Every structure is written in C-alpha cells, then in structure tokens.
C-alpha cells in the first residue's frame, strides 16, 4: 500500500475540484439561465443573484413564444416527443438487428465476415453530408423523405455500427467453452444464445444501447435535411429560438435542460449495468 501525504491529498482535492468546475460549469450556467429572462441574462456584469422565473419553461410547454414583435408558435414539445420516438425506435431496431448480427460475427467466422463487419463500421467514417445528398434524392423517389420510417432508417447509420462493434467485442469475451458446455448439456444454439450469451453480454448491450441512444438523440444534420418541422427532433427544433427579433437565450437554456434530461436520466439508470463485471468468474482466471 502506498501512503499518501497530507499535501498530496490536498493537491488531489484541488485538482479534482478544478476538473469538476471546468466540466460542470456550462451545465450549471445553462441551468441558471433557464430560470432567467433574456434581460437578466444579457445584463452586464452577469449575476448569479436574480429572481427566478418559470416563464421560459411555460413558453416551451404551451408552445407560445413571447417576443418583442409578438407571439410566435413553437413546436418544442412536439420536437421533444419526436426526439424520444426517433431515438427509442432507432435504438430498438438497431438492437434487434445488431445484437444477433454481432453474435454471428463473434462466433462464426465465415467467408467475408470480416469484410462485412468492416463495411458496416465504415458507415461511421464518411461525413454524414456525403451520404445525405444522394439519400435526399432516393428518399424523394421512394416517398420516404419527411417520414418517421425514413428517419429511423437513416438513424441506423448511426446506431447499427456502434451496437454491432461494441456488442461483438463483448460476445467475443465470453469463453466459447461456456457456450459449448450449454450445447453439450443438450440445449439448442438458440437457447444457448438466449440463456448464456445474451445475459453475459448484458452490460455490453446496455452500454452500446445507451451510447447509440445518445448519438441518435444528438443527431442534427440528418433530421435537418430529411425532415420538416413536424418530424424534427429537439436538436433541429432549437433553431426556432433564433428569431427575427433576437435570440431567445432563456428559452434555449430551458430547452437544453429539458432535452438533456432524458439522456442524463438514462445514463444514470444504466450506470450500474455499465460497471457490472462481465465475466463474473466464469472460467478460472
């Protein structure tokens, strides 16, 4: 055991505080801004003492944005629901397709399997704009532009490679002997997949699903190009706060707080799965 001196402890504490301040400050500041009016936000010097107001949240939830030039309709709540729907469906579909595929890539080395897996990963290499132009055209021909199905399909470019590659690694980490043992005990390969591989890769699948969800949630450019107002997620919807009569900082802050809440909640909930040991002493190590 290494002994740490008092000075070392203090320095470590200071360093940690600095890091936490650095990373948490923007979030705290946004949180404070969301309870202020545009006037107090823009006052100089800025102050942390103010009378909190809920009017930003009120405007978002009712969909009526009060600006200097009158009342504007905004679809923030609709956008939020769109975000939830698009991200959840995309991740769900990516899990249904990606987890069995990852298992196949991990366990069955067939001719060209590496190439196919790599091709799927390469979807992540290209800048989204590269695929967007042809996609816009195809989607118009196929009648998929500005549909949820079209968007969810495109979101697979984000979710599927991520889930496939992360989960594949977790499947590969499971000792093949453990699966063989279950087969030899008399269970079919599908039962082995369900009762052995899936539970053991559980933490990995949760991690991959969470990451895919965050990536899908934060996506901007696909939805910007392929969806119109009523199908847009919050990331695109936030553009509506840049109005002719100025930028609505208060509402933007409130919108950000509302839109990071689901991902934050999910991350906190999933944390225990992410840290759970994978192998649990399956084989002698």
């Amino acid at each position, binding site marked *: 055991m290494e002994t740490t001196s008092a000075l070392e402890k203090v320095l470590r504490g200071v360093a940690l505080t600095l890091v936490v301040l650095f990373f948490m400050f923007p979030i705290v500041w946004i949180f404070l801004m969301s309870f202020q009016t545009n006037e107090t936000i823009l006052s100089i010097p800025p102050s942390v003492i103010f009378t909190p107001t809920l009017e930003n949240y009120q405007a978002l939830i009712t969909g009526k944005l009060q600006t200097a030039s009158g009342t504007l309709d905004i679809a923030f709540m609709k956008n939020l629901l769109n975000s939830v729907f698009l991200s959840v469906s995309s991740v769900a579909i990516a899990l249904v397709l990606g987890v069995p595929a990852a298992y196949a890539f991990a366990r069955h080395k067939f001719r060209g399997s590496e190439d196919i897996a790599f091709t799927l990963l390469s979807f992540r290499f290209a800048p989204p704009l590269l695929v967007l132009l042809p996609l816009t055209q195809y989607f118009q021909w196929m009648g998929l532009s500005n549909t949820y199905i079209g968007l969810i399909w495109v979101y697979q470019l984000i979710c599927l490679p991520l889930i496939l590659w992360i989960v594949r690694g977790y499947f590969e980490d499971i000792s093949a002997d453990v699966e063989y043992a279950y087969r030899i*005990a008399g269970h079919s390969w599908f039962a082995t997949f369900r009762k052995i591989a899936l539970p053991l890769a559980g933490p990995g699948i949760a991690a991959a699903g969470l990451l895919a969800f965050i990536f899908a949630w934060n996506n901007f450019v696909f939805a910007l190009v392929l969806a119109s107002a009523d199908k847009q997620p919050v990331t695109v919807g936030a553009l509506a706060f840049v109005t002719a009569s100025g930028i609505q900082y208060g509402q933007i802050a409130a919108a950000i707080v509302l839109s990071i809440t689901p991902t934050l909640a999910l991350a906190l909930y999933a944390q225990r799965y992410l840290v759970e040991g994978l192998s649990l002493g399956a084989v002698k190590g």
Partner: protein
Amino acid sequence: MTTLQLQNIVKRYKSQVVLDNLSLDVADGETLVLFGPSGAGKTVLLRLVAGVIEPDEGRVIIGGEDMTDVDAEHRGIGMAFQNFALFPHMSAFDNIASPLTATRSSKEAIVAGVGKVAKLLKIDHVLSHHPKALSNGQKQRTALARALVGSPPVLLLDDPLRNVDAKLRFEMRLELPRLLAAQGATVVYVTQDYKEAMALGDRIAVMAKGRIRQIGTPEDIYNAPADIEIARLFGDPTINLLDVTPKAAGAGIDVELSGVKVALPHLPASLAGRSLVIGIRPETLHFVEAGTPGAIPVEVEAETPLNEKTVTLVRVSGGREVLVSRPAGTPGPVAGTAHIAVDGATTFLFDKETGQRVAAAGQSAKTQGAAA
C-alpha cells in the same frame, strides 16, 4: 452398449494438421485416458467427439450410430472442461441442473437428480452459490456434477484436475475411478499427468502431434514403451537413457556400461554394431557390494526423497549421470564410491535416430513404480 469409435479423423486449422488420420475405439464402459503433451490434439479430439467442432474428414460413431453430422445437443454426452466453463450467471444448482432442464424433466426429478449427484460430490451445501463464490475445488466438482447428472452414456473429461491444488487432485484421483465405475459410462479422460493416466485408465492412448503413438494398458505403456519419448514421459524419476553400441555375444548381445559388460541375452544378435540408446528404469538399478559380478563403480553425488522412494544421483566413470531409486527406508550407499548392478533383462533399447524401441523388453520387468 455405448461404444465410441473414431475413424480416420483429420482436422486442420489453416494449413496446420491438428489430427492426422486418427482412429480410435473405446469399448463400452471403458475408461480411456488420452495422454500427451500440450498441443498434441487431445482437447481438439474431445471436442470433436462432443460435437462442438467438426472433423474435416473421418467419422465419429457413438453407440454404433454415425454422429459425425449430429449437433452437440443430440449426442447424449457429458463433458467437464479443464477451465470448468461454469455458467457465471447461474447458481451451482442451475449449473448442475442444465442437462436436466434440456430434457424438460419435472421439477421434482431435477431437484432429486441434482441433490443426488451433489451429495456424491460433497457440494450439496453450496448449491445456492454462484460460481464466483465457489472455491476452485468446488467449481471443479460442480463442473463434474454437471457432466454426471444426466447419466450420459459417454463422458468426456478434459483434464478436470488440472486447475485444482495438489491435495484435491490426489483426493479426486482416488475418488474418480469409483465414481466413473458407478456411472458405468464410456469415459474418455484427457490428462498431461502420467500418474493420473496410470491411476484412472483402463487403457492409455499416448498422443503426440495429432497421432496416437501407442495405445495399451498402463502396464503395457510402462513396461513396453513404443519409443524414447513415451519411456521418458512415464516414470518418476525419469528413465536413464545412455548411448550404447551393442556387440554380439552368442545368440544375444552385450552392451558396455562404464567398462562393464551387461548381457542382454533376450535381444537378437542382429542389433550388434548399431547406434542405440539403452533405457534403464531407476528402480531396476540396485546398489551392490564391490566385487559382485557385473558391479559398476559409481560416485554418489546427491540423494533426495521422492514420495515413498529415495532417489540417488550417481556419476559413472566417463561423467554420465544416472538416477537410482530404491524404496525409502532401505539401506543405501554412503557418500563416495559405491557400486550398482544392471539387470539387462529389464532394459529397453531404442534406435538413436528414430527413437523407436528396437525390440521387446524382457518379461521380468515388474510393474514396480507403475502404480506410483
């Protein structure tokens, strides 16, 4: 009747041949030990029988039925893995019960079946534990219980004692033959430990480089090793190997060890003049009084106890070192000069080039040490 037959099995990984046209018959109820160094293909062979890997050529026949293309779950086999391969997310009970749940046994039958085998293996008190909470010995017993619980007609045991401590290994070596006999199953047991092989096997198949080099009873292997390598692997202390060039002596031959002639009357004169290696088991060497006919003068170098034996390292003239063993507690030489005698009839001769034994050893070779 559950016999196991492997016919002309070939298995390659990339260009490497792991099993090279291997054939093997295991009789009903027999325990066959696969013995050999790591990389010999023992584990691959076992997995091939279990059905989790497929041979490139050849047939696997279990109980007279061709099972080559049958999936692992339909072969009716129990298997214990070297690394235990327990299901980490299930309790010991569920681990052991897995072969019973596969056959959709009733709950009562499962509880009774698991209870019985757990009691037999003395793990009935840890059934609710997960593998993480089990000691190595308990893990090993759980893995064994899982293999036994369904009373499979064929049992494959892949070095199950490899990862447990010496005390437990010794206990299990005593217990296993009784357990296996009670099962009445046809058993294939893989090990790298020659004592385990001799203690458990009805027959031993010695494997090397994907082939079976010799197959026979433990006594056969010990008393008539097919080549130098097998002679060296079986026996503790290891066999003494000395280069010799025999001379014809009547119908038989003589070899000269440190200037003393040792007669090998049972070997043919045709061997005279060839470059050979003589193998002398340490327990067939004896210390004798100076002046005894055939006594070879030696320099005593060191002495060490080995289980129930005492092993003496001696140096013969010419600098070659030889091991002599005798039952512990019997009088031995004092330090300095001593004399040993060789019974020519108990020695083996191997070809120096190929390592193959050139002729049968004498019949007088007793199985001393064989049961060690």
